[in-house]
């Protein structure tokens, strides 16, 4: 017999997509205007700017204490790990993603499952920080999400059947995808699906890619690390950066990191997509003197061609794993188009979102040891003694001097998204107060192996709490209030025009606070730790609030001493949806 290799290529394969009569197709205008429409949630961040602000007011400070569960649905199986998803809702159907690359469609009236898609994962996946997923994107008749084996899967929203699948990259080299994809309008190509890559601890090179939503066909690719060539329409386009070794020594740019693992936001006003780039590889900063662009940075990308319009580096020559991936949230103040981001490194930055010009940076955690401040030029004023030592300078040449640095590498804030209230003009930032002992070790790159060159252990800096939800005035940096939490916060925040702030804790409490003073008005035990992001929408005249509960994420895996304090928190996997009893809502 003649051996024949079947190739997993998706070319030249015609697919017919069933019509979905009950569900109206999601249009690009619906996504762009998502923040203004209260009857659905069709984007990550409740609007592409990522403000997580709802104009709904039916649930308010006076009645929120009366919230009751409308229904709950278990994610089932034995795959109960961290649930970091944000639900989407459209035409009475909720779409959620879950641990181990699973997805569900749920009837929002009853909480009953409509369909479930379980991605068949290889045994050798290499996720760094739990088998999580942060949500889906929806467009037309498709819902699209990324998988732990670094694929994008587009499902028919009505049936849950696969319409197309595309491999982002080789999972064996450490690639995976966990962020919610972003859908943006373009003139040249129609709506594009924008995604990044995960695998920041494995020496992968970060990039942002734009694909046609209907087919998954790649339109452009933009690497984050200087020296790498982008592509447009299948041809090389432009190199990232001005020259190959401007801010990197030797060949290290080739495995330079800068993973875009948290996806991005989009600002319809400027037409720019904002993506963050993760830590440079390896962690040992003495191996790579220079700024190491664009690691630990925010970049603004023109979705028309994938070009970088501006970049801003939060931690040049990072030595602490201060990934620059945290979300960029657009907001307007003082007649200016601004954007804010709360970095792993403990500073809250305000930038001009039209050109990336630095406006101000304020500490949002109690203690920062690695930098005195962010100077007027937007660069950190480093504390040289707080950079982990060069292993070559150590006595045996194997381990550099250990330093205690604050924040820890899990950050003053990690992936969990903050919210901005157009009513109070405050940002609500889920932060953590912790530090780390960190030291450098020699390391060489090996495909598919962790590329750290550092050792570390996390320690709390207060006896009574690590987590702290902070209300921050972006114009002054003033912390208006904080709500402390014993365990580190790891879930997203939602705020409403009725002056409420919703978030969940690893202890399992789903809470609503008064947006003006942080006073707790509602708390419900969901049964497992919350590391997901809440949403709210209006269904048949009633305001609904949903959160997915299920403990996990990076903290139990990487939390050092902190992991012990959360060891008694049990895993789960449950979607909770709340509303007011009708009688009470009428009051």
């Amino acid at each position, binding site marked *: *017999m*003649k*051996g*024949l*290799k*079947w*190739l*997993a*290529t*998706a070319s030249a*394969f015609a697919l017919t997509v069933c019509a979905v009569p009950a569900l109206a197709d999601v249009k690009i205008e619906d996504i762009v205007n998502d923040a203004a429409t209260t009857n659905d949630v069709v984007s990550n961040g409740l609007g592409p700017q990522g403000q997580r602000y709802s104009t709904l007011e039916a649930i308010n400070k006076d009645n929120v204490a009366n919230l009751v569960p409308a229904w709950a649905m278990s994610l089932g*199986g*034995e*795959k109960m790990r961290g649930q970091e998803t944000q639900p989407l809702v459209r035409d009475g159907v909720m779409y959620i993603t879950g641990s181990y690359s*699973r997805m569900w469609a749920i009837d929002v009236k009853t909480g009953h499952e409509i369909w479930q898609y*379980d*991605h*068949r994962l*290889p*045994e*050798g996946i290499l996720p760094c920080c739990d088998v999580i997923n942060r949500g889906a994107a929806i467009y037309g008749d498709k819902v699209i999400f990324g998988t732990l*084996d670094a694929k994008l*899967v*587009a499902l028919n929203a009505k049936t849950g*059947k*696969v*319409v*197309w*699948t595309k491999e982002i990259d080789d*999972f*064996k080299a450490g690639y995976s995808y966990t962020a919610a994809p972003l859908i943006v309008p373009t003139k040249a190509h129609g709506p594009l699906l924008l995604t990044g890559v995960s695998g920041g601890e494995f020496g992968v090179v970060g990039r942002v890619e734009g694909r046609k939503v209907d087919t998954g066909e790649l339109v452009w690719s933009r690497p984050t690390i200087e020296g790498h060539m982008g592509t447009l329409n299948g041809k090389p386009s432009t190199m990232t950066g001005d020259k190959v070794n401007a801010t990197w020594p030797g060949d290290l740019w080739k495995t330079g990191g800068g993973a875009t693992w948290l996806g991005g936001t989009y600002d319809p006003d400027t037409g720019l997509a904002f993506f963050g780039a993760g830590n440079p590889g390896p962690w040992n900063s003495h191996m790579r003197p220079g700024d190491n662009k664009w690691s630990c940075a925010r970049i603004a990308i023109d979705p028309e061609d994938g070009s970088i319009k501006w970049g801003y580096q939060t931690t040049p020559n990072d030595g602490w794993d201060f990934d620059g991936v945290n979300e960029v949230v657009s907001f307007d103040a003082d007649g200016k188009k601004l954007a804010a981001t709360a970095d792993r490194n403990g500073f809250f930055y305000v930038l001009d979102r039209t050109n990336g010009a630095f406006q101000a940076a304020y500490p949002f955690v109690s203690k920062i040891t690695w930098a005195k401040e962010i100077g007027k030029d937007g660069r950190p004023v480093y504390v040289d003694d707080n950079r982990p030592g060069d292993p070559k300078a150590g006595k045996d040449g194997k381990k550099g001097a250990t330093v205690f640095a604050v924040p820890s590498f899990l950050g003053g804030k990690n992936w969990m998204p903050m919210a901005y209230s157009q009513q109070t003009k405050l940002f609500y930032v889920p932060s953590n107060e912790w530090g780390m002992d960190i030291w450098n070790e020699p390391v060489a790159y090996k495909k598919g192996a962790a590329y750290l060159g550092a050792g570390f252990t996390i320690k709390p800096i207060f006896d009574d709490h690590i987590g702290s939800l902070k209300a921050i005035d972006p114009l002054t940096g003033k912390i208006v209030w904080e709500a402390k939490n014993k365990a580190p916060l790891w879930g997203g925040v939602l705020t409403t025009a009725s002056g409420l702030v919703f978030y969940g804790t690893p202890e399992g409490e789903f809470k609503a606070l008064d947006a003006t003073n942080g006073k707790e008005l509602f708390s419900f035990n969901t049964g497992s730790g919350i590391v997901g992001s809440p949403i709210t929408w209006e269904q048949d005249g009633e305001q609904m609030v949903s959160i997915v509960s299920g403990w996990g994420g990076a903290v139990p895996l990487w939390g050092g001493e902190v992991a012990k304090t959360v060891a008694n928190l049990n895993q789960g996997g449950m979607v909770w949806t709340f509303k007011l009893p009708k009688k009470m809502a009428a009051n």
Partner: protein
Amino acid sequence: MIKFAIRFTTAAALLTAMAAGAHAGPVSDPLNSPVWNDLAKKTFGDAEIVFDDRVKVIVPDVVENQAQVPVSADARALPNVERLVVLTDLNPIQHVLTLTPVAAKADAFVSFRLKVEQGTPVRAAALTSDGVWHVGGVFLEAAGGGCSSPAMARGDSDWTTTVGNAQGKLWRNADGTARLRLRVRHPMDTGLAKDNTPAFFIEKLDVKGAGGEPLATIELFEPVSEDPTLTLSVKPQATDASVSVDGRDNNGNIYRSVVPASWNQSALAAPRAATR
């Protein structure tokens, strides 16, 4: 009462029906399956069904491996078959596969390997152009567990390196048809194994001639054995140098293979193929 218009076409069956009273209504299933009426309703709706000995299902007398039971479904004795469906009454997933010849370019015949969860009727149902389903079958005696055991691929540290690999061969038959045999590496997970592996299976194969003209389509379901091994009888153009098979699994992965028709290939063009 389920209303089936059931018609017998063989004399033996007719006698049986007369003995039973020969009145309208469901006629007893020759295989005496407890679920046949529901399965038939689910599969065929209100279409007319007849039990017909011309539709043959061949299984081994003794099952050695309940995850790999060789099965042949053969309705070549019937004219104008538009579709051939294989069903297993007592498997947790009853629908095994559907073969659809395109424009009579494939015979109503398929051989494959089947997972069997417990002893069960195995049936083939052939839809003829007059809208009637002709059903034949046998009872397969087997020990259980074929659908709820993990795939062999589960013990493989990396099945992703071999998934979609295929072996195939074409033979020329005396009547001008071509016998196609193809084996494709794929875990064909049922989603029912205790190890929590989700359902993952090839759900469609399109068989095409060298010029791309469709010959047959096969829909596969979870009970088809791991590394599906299929035999078909197809009718490509007499001069076609190959037959191609395009596949897609339920995760959206797409596979493609080309099986050469060695008798139509120039010895100069492919000198080594003949010796392998």
